[in-house]
């Protein structure tokens, strides 16, 4: 009897719950403002984080998503990762149609289970469970619930009430509970302009509720999502990383812990290897020159393979193993290079950072394990040099476009220290084009050009050398998409890794470059560096825009016009100066058939206000239009 009544209570509870969900999450009840620009609406996203001890954290997720169309499917995000230290205790979902009628219950066994191996990852201990649901009707509402338990407390998930573009939010809740002795800390960012209420904020409890966040459009040249939208970063001073306890209040302490508990014992090398590298370095005494020799040795000896094993992928594979196997990931290869450098008395420090085209900083005011990449830091008098150890090709000390201009955490012998990496100045990112072209009486173009790229521009070019000839041909046909019927007649490269300068020598030809009609020929004067791109028009831009890296181009091209024609029209010289940069073109007429075309384009890096965007667009449009200026010739 007792059991029976309990059962009754349970069923009542469940049916009430189901009823509640039905009416509450009916798709029709979503306000119009939340539907605007939205592919999906987050009705509720509640995350409860319970930190029981330094070695135990439970994360409960309840997410109710109304998906309005196919593009909104990714908002469901029904995926949980697991490994030796993390278990997925429960995971399930229920699907309702637009009116709130239940369509399907999805149990754990209906989720898919997959190993986390893809791309250049050779092996990983991580796996994930995910939902692969085929919608049968739009809109539909999915209630997703999961519970994940982990002994790794070094990473508390960030709270982002808004997680994506084209997604609106009715309500998003975070609740954190943590014992007072673990040093729980948090950092809030970008809260202004959003309705976020902090209901509890004590040493052991934290709660936020965000409501009614409108869907955001993605806009070109926007800064990173996390720089514009709200995010709470959390961490513990006393944490555990895959079975290893740690504590750090300062970066200094963090570095000490990391060196002692994670790195120590991974940098031994055999006497034989040490002798070999010492012999190679010989009598060289300059530490940077020694480092250069060691770096080239590593580039020739190793290849990059990502293997995710041991301490959650945070501990590098021993240097002696890399020495024997000749491969490793960023941690292993950096650590190996460090061991070799130490063998020749060059100090080098293991460095964690975000490797990305976007300049992502280690949050220097928030001590915690951060980053997705490892490089090496070598002191160079009062400055530092950074070495990317995963590439077999890039020059010694080259960082552009992946690890440049950002805060990184360097593990120095006395502890960690935040250091900013190399900044490539706008004026150093040069590309100069020098050459000449001739237009034949039938409009055929033939010419040669030498293009020299430096700074960040080097990084956009050096790989050309390694491409297959068919891919090189494809590259140039895209690069010169302003020249139809392009033929590459000759191609030669000089890759000067010492000076970090890449030179392309190209000879080309193209029929019908000059278009002839009724005794007249039109010749676009800028054959080699025409800017054919465009900056998108954005109706009513909201976000600021960013030019991450500046550049400086300069061209000087001799133009030989066909005999038997006379110049009817020459484009006028042009000059434009804006806060985003400057642009000039000039045509010098040597004689009836010989011209010199000069052009400079300088683009300044910077973060600009949203209202400046149109001005920038118009600047680039001027460049586009003037780059397409034409000479008109008349047949004599």
């Amino acid at each position, binding site marked *: 009897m007792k059991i029976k009544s309990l059962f009754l209570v349970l069923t009542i509870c469940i049916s009430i719950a189901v009823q509640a969900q039905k009416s509450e999450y009916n798709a029709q009840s979503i306000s119009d403002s939340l539907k605007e620009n939205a592919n999906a609406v987050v009705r509720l996203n509640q995350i409860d984080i319970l930190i029981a001890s330094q070695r135990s954290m439970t994360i409960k997720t309840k997410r109710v998503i109304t998906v309005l169309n196919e593009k909104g499917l990714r908002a469901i995000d029904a995926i949980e990762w697991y490994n030796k230290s993390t278990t997925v205790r429960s995971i399930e979902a229920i699907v309702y149609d637009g009116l709130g009628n239940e369509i399907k219950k999805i149990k754990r066994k209906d989720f898919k289970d*997959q190993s986390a191996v893809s791309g250049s990852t050779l092996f990983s201990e991580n796996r994930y469970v995910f939902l692969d649901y085929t919608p049968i009707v739009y809109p539909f509402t999915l209630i997703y619930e999961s519970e994940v338990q982990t002994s790794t407390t070094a990473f508390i998930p960030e709270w982002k009430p808004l997680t994506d573009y084209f997604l609106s939010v009715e309500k998003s809740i975070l609740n954190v509970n943590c014992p007072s002795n673990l040093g729980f800390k948090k950092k809030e960012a970008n809260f202004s302009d959003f309705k976020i209420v902090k209901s509890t904020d004590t040493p052991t409890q934290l709660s936020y509720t965000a409501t009614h966040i409108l869907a955001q459009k993605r806009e070109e040249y926007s800064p990173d999502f996390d720089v514009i939208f709200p995010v709470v970063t959390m961490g513990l001073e006393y944490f555990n990383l895959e079975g290893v306890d740690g504590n750090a209040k300062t970066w200094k302490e963090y570095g000490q812990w990391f060196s002692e508990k994670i790195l120590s014992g991974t940098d031994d090398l055999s006497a034989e290897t040490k002798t070999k590298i010492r012999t190679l370095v010989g009598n060289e005494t300059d530490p940077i020159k020694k480092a250069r020799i060691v770096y080239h040795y590593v580039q020739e000896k190793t290849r990059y393979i990502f293997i995710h094993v041991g301490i959650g992928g945070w501990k590098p594979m021993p240097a002696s193993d890399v020495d024997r196997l000749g491969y490793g990931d960023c941690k292993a290869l950096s650590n190996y290079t460090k061991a070799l450098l130490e063998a020749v008395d060059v100090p080098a420090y293991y460095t964690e950072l975000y490797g990305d085209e976007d300049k992502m900083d280690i949050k220097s005011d928030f001590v915690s394990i951060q980053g997705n990449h490892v490089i090496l830091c070598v002191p160079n008098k009062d400055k530092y040099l950074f070495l990317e150890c995963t590439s077999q090709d890039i020059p010694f000390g080259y960082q552009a476009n992946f690890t440049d201009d950002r805060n990184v955490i360097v593990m120095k012998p006395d502890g960690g220290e935040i250091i900013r990496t190399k900044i490539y100045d706008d004026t150093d990112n040069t590309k100069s084009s020098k050459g000449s072209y001739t237009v034949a009486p039938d409009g055929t173009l033939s010419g040669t050009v030498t293009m020299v790229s430096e700074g960040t521009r080097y990084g956009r070019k050096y790989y050309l050398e390694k491409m297959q000839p068919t891919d090189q041909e494809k590259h140039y046909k895209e690069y010169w998409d302003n020249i139809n019927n392009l033929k590459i007649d000759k191609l030669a490269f000089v890759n000067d890794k010492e000076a970090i300068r890449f030179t392309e020598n190209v000879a080309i030809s193209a029929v019908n470059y000059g278009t002839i009609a009724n005794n007249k020929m039109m010749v676009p004067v800028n054959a080699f560096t025409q800017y054919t791109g465009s900056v998108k028009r954005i109706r009513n831009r909201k976000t600021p825009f960013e030019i991450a890296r500046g550049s400086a181009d300069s061209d000087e091209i001799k133009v030989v016009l066909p005999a038997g024609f006379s110049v009817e029209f020459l484009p006028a010289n042009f000059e434009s100066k804006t806060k985003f940069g400057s642009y000039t073109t000039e045509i010098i007429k040597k004689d009836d058939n010989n011209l010199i075309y000069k052009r400079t384009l300088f683009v300044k890096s910077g973060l600009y206000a949203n209202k400046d965007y149109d001005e920038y667009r118009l600047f680039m449009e001027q460049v586009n239009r003037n780059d397409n200026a034409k000479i008109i010739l008349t047949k004599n």
Partner: protein
Amino acid sequence: MSLNKSVLLLLLLSVCLQSNAQEFKLGKVSIAELQQKQHPKDTTAVAAILFEKGEVHFEFTQDNGFTMVTEVATRIKIYKKEGYDFSNQKVAYYIGGSTKENVSFTDAATYNLVDGKIEKTKLKSDGEFNEKVNRYWGQVKIALPNVKVGSVIEFKYTVKSSRYGSLQDWQFQNSIPVNYSEFKTYIPEYYSYKPSMKGFITPKVTEEKKQKTINYSYREPAEPGSAITTSSSQEKLEFQETKTTYVAENLPALKEEAFVNNINNYASSVSHELSVIKYPNRPYEYYSTDWAAVTKTIYDYDDFGPELNKTGYFEDDLKIVLAGLNTTDEKISALLNYVKNAVKWNDYTGYSCNDGVKKAYKDKTGNVAEINLMLTAMLRYAGLTANPVLVSTRSNGIALFPNRTAFNYVIAAVETPQGVVLLDATDKFAMPNVLPFRALNWVGRLIRKDGTSQEIDLMPKVASMDTIAMNYTVDANGQISGKLREQKTDHEALLFRKNADAVTADMYLEKLENEYKKIEISDYVRANEKELQLPVSETFAFKGANLCEIIGGKIYISPLLFFAKEQNPFKQEVREYPVDFGYPFLEKYAINITIPDGYEVETLPVAAILKMQDDLGAFKFMTNVSGNIIQIAMTHQINTPIISSEYYPMLKDYYQGMLAKQSEKIILKKI
């Protein structure tokens, strides 16, 4: 004499073969191979397969009967750092069935030349990884140690399997050059496999038959294939074994080209599929031998033919759907729409049902087979002559040879007096005879109720139309304002509907404005977006400031404005593989341009007609001036979905001529 001669020849031959064979043995890497700096025939090669030898044989155990053993030994030379990828290898194995497959790597090592001496670094267990990818597949991966530019690597792997429905596909060609490729099969007389070869390079094939004896002790009845006798004693199994050897040498690297349907259609390879099982004292079991047998086999599968015969689950619902409908066309379109709405595709291909049509109907989700077999059954129920058509999708490659794996997809066909109507209910924008792009892959195979079958051409015959009518006015400042109407049919309409699906009007227009050289669009109206049987159309007014150039007081107009194609899609100098457009099409433009007061036409592009040989395509450009209005009529049509590579130079010239014409300017001067 002649006998002696041939014996001698045979001896010589076997000696030659032997010396050859020695060279192709793992562990015998030569200094010459290590010293080689680049591939002698392809200096751009990043690596090369010096040899690759595979063999398949059958091992007999009394407990399990025959097990299929595949052994592959490979030697690879690394010329450049970009070739390092070849020093990581992986082999997948199936774990989804009741019998497990397993893979093992042996003899894996890297060879380097150090101070003139060969240094061998063996692969140890820390370089080998075994992982369960998902419920169905596992894989073993190796990362060879100590690989540098110039290294030679070697490895061998063995796969043991009881899934003997087909042998491992043998690819003679690879993305890097292959110097020597050999594949041997040792097949006991109980099995017959049908080989299918494809690609431009044909290997040498030799065959040899041999008597084999296997000794074993018999205790209890074993699996089929071993059930020779029932006494419990020492037993002898005698049978004939056929050894077939395929050898190909000096295969060039396979290079991707643009506009190729699927590069694997052209790679040299051989595949084998089981055609007969001939166990003693049992009737022969026939499998695929020709298209008819393949289709019959598939038809007889439990998850194919029988699924077609189930009707009970939909009968009540269909009575409502079909009520009042009389003509074939009405019934076809009603049923296609009904299935499209009732069951959504879960993105799985295959010609076999997974959960079955009944469950798919109930769950409102299913794979390709469930959806289209259900559709076929409904069409039959409505009294139409409907049958399934087996198809190979573009990503699966063209079904060149009769085997069961040649197909991975199924659609429905209705035979009408006007011809066959093809249907696919997995795509919400597909229409009768307008199949999704993935299914447009040469020919399919139609299966009738009695199991007989017939080839069906899948490629569209009707040109998809894109019709544009545009009237615009140019003012003296080069500003343009006008109106435009664009109408699309068939595949063009399908593509449009797909791209516009779930895109808000605002987003769509922003994209269109940017694509069309930053015009400003107003009064946008879209018609028939949901009425699939009608052409979809867009109408809008536009303004543009960047569409004309004023040079030296004259106005230069590109008459097609933003529609002028600026780049030849065919950039390659030579081409090896056919150009695949997917469907024939016709683009048609009618343009009226009003010129500003005080101006007259100085130059007008002259009319032109370009015609491709064999009626493959044609381009027409006509102009006319009356008063202050210039009229342009232009058509561009490609009449066949696939153009073979021999026509490539002509096609490239055609596009070049068309582009040149489209880029010609109208020049206006002041009166």
